[in-house]
């Protein structure tokens, strides 16, 4: 259609295509998978990476922001990390590869590479739509990940922590997880860099949550200062299922974390909480598309942002209420603390409501620290800089405390305090 496009490829686009060609025959997959990969890469070739003219990428012009792609990662093992909470069951994905022998009691675990090789991954490998650049990149390049099946009525006594660790390079992973009915537990999806070497990370978590499950899923992104992180989670929420989804961004140079959530079972409930800690010259985008597809579902979304230096942040929150999804109750809020004159945060709430008996609302605030709070702390002898740090911490800690699990709250507050101490 557009004959000119190839000649206008950016360096990063050209490098992606070259990386794909260089890995010809090396990326795992049967015929169907390979055909899907080729088609996805072809889409990237044809339309390039999205620019601000693509609505979903209006505030994150990927074509211009993604300047370079690091070389394909070697398979050199990088070190594993200490789990966030002691006693967690840990599954590591190191440098894009799983440990084939990994096991956690009661769970069925296999490697995604195997699903690619036997072709069972082919149907879900595609992108979500023409603007799904994350899905395209991941689908083209993904090599491995864990496929996890959690049988009905399982109660995970300890959190399941999935550490996706790298030492730079191109890392493309996928995590399909199926929760049977009535499963209870906490999963931590943690992205972590252990070196200063730049990385291009793409990751897709593909989650199906069975009826009546009560789950907490935490995405903790701690990539390195030169890393690009393109994350996506796809969630299908069954009847009466309750999900607390926490998204914490505390790293990366260019970050896009997409949340594609469908409430497909009546009585389901989503609690989304986001924390964006932004500093330096970074760009971080959290984009949510939530579909209330059936009647009687609820959701609340609270995003808290702390922005230092020349950092830029984006939150796009789209709530779609289907025509017969009566009695939907959805509330969305986005609160930002701008800590410097050059800091930026863009908020785009969107409500698309096709049912008439629903409650949907959204609100956004941008503020400095509350001077009454600051005065109160100082009036007790706490010096101004320390009082400010306490209040910034409090602004996000309030969200973390909703997790209720004390060990997890402590661990996350530790990460947040450490980040703030480094950047404030």
């Amino acid at each position, binding site marked *: 259609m557009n004959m000119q496009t190839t000649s206008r490829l950016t360096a990063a686009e050209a490098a992606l295509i070259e990386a794909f060609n260089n890995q010809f025959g090396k990326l795992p997959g049967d015929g169907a998978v390979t055909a899907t990969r080729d088609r996805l890469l072809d889409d990237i070739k044809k339309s390039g990476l999205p620019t601000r003219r693509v609505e979903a990428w209006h505030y994150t012009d990927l074509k211009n922001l993604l300047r370079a792609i690091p070389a394909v990662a070697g398979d050199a093992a990088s070190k594993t990390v200490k789990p966030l909470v002691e006693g967690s069951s840990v599954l590591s994905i190191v440098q894009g590869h799983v440990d084939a022998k990994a096991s956690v009691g009661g769970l069925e675990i296999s490697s995604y590479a195997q699903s690619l090789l036997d072709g069972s991954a082919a149907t879900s490998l595609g992108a979500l739509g023409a603007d799904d650049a994350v899905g395209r990149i991941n689908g083209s390049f993904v090599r491995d990940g864990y496929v996890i099946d959690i049988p009905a009525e399982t109660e995970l006594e300890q959190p399941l922590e999935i550490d996706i660790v790298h030492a730079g390079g191109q890392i493309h992973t996928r995590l399909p997880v199926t929760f049977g009915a009535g499963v209870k537990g906490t999963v931590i999806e943690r992205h972590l860099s252990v070196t200063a070497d730049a990385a291009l990370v793409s990751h897709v978590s593909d989650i199906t949550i069975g009826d009546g499950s009560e789950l907490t899923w935490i995405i903790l992104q701690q990539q390195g200062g030169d890393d690009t992180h393109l994350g996506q989670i796809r969630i299908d929420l069954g009847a009466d299922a309750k999900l607390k989804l926490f998204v914490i961004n505390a790293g990366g140079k260019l970050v896009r974390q997409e949340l594609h959530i469908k409430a497909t079972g009546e009585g389901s409930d989503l609690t989304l909480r986001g924390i964006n800690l932004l500093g330096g010259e970074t760009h971080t985008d959290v984009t949510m598309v939530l579909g209330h597809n059936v009647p009687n579902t609820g959701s609340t979304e609270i995003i808290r942002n702390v922005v230092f230096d020349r950092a830029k942040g984006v939150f796009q929150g789209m709530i779609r209420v289907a025509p017969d999804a009566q009695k939907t109750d959805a509330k969305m809020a986005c609160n930002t603390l701008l800590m410097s004159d050059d800091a930026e945060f863009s908020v785009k709430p969107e409500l698309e409501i096709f049912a008439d008996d629903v409650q949907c609302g959204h609100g956004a605030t941008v503020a400095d620290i509350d*001077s*009454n*709070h600051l*005065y*109160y*702390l*100082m*009036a*007790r*002898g*706490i*010096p*101004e800089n*320390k*009082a400010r740090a*306490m*209040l910034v*911490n*409090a*602004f*996000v*800690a*309030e969200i973390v*405390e909703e997790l209720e699990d004390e060990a997890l709250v402590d661990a996350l507050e530790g990460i947040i305090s450490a980040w703030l101490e480094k950047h404030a």
Partner: protein
Amino acid sequence: MLEIRNLHARIAEDGTEIIRGLNLTVKAGEIAAIMGPNGSGKSTLSYILSGREDYEVTEGDILYNGESILELDAAERASKGIFLAFQYPVEIPGVATMQFLKVAMNEQRKARGEEELKTPDFMRLVKDAAAKLQINPDMLKRPLNVGFSGGEKKRAEILQMALLQPQLCVLDETDSGLDIDALKIVADGVNALRSPDRAVIVITHYQRLLDYIVPDTVHVLYKGKVIKSGDKTLAHELEANGYADIIGAAA
């Protein structure tokens, strides 16, 4: 201990003058009551003493232990021993009460060149002080002042005062919103802090609190200055006759 000389102060934002030539001396060991009708500048005086930045001193001086404190910020004044028990303590979600108490106590100790408290010692101090004020330990597990009733907030202020052991305590309408039992507990807490090297300024509308915290001196504030001073009988007079006579006499 405290000497306020011809103080003039205004709201920084709009320049409204609130304090207009106020003179007041409070000696160590003294309990001074400040009374006055609404809008006379009582709360403003407490904010200015504690170093709130919303007010500007345009004339006069505040001497504390012989030194001017006008150039000190709120935190510096607090660490020198000035404490304001707020009329409306703010709720700060996300700041744990215990963490706040520990940081405040240790920052003050640091500023005075003392060693930081060890956690077990800190816990013991808080537990003892809370028990004396009949504060439920569960309250201290909550974020600072969040979800506290009016009475609980006032008790929490006195708890902070007991822990920080200030030299100059300013109580801004600590009696408002308290039932009689809570009032007695709070008054006992204040009386326990009475000592020859500590001074207390009690700002109140009502004689009631002064039945429990008996003042050595009573000062009537009107239109930003002290128009009459006396001993505790002055408070009784005000309770019986209102402010009109005194204001009339001063005019």
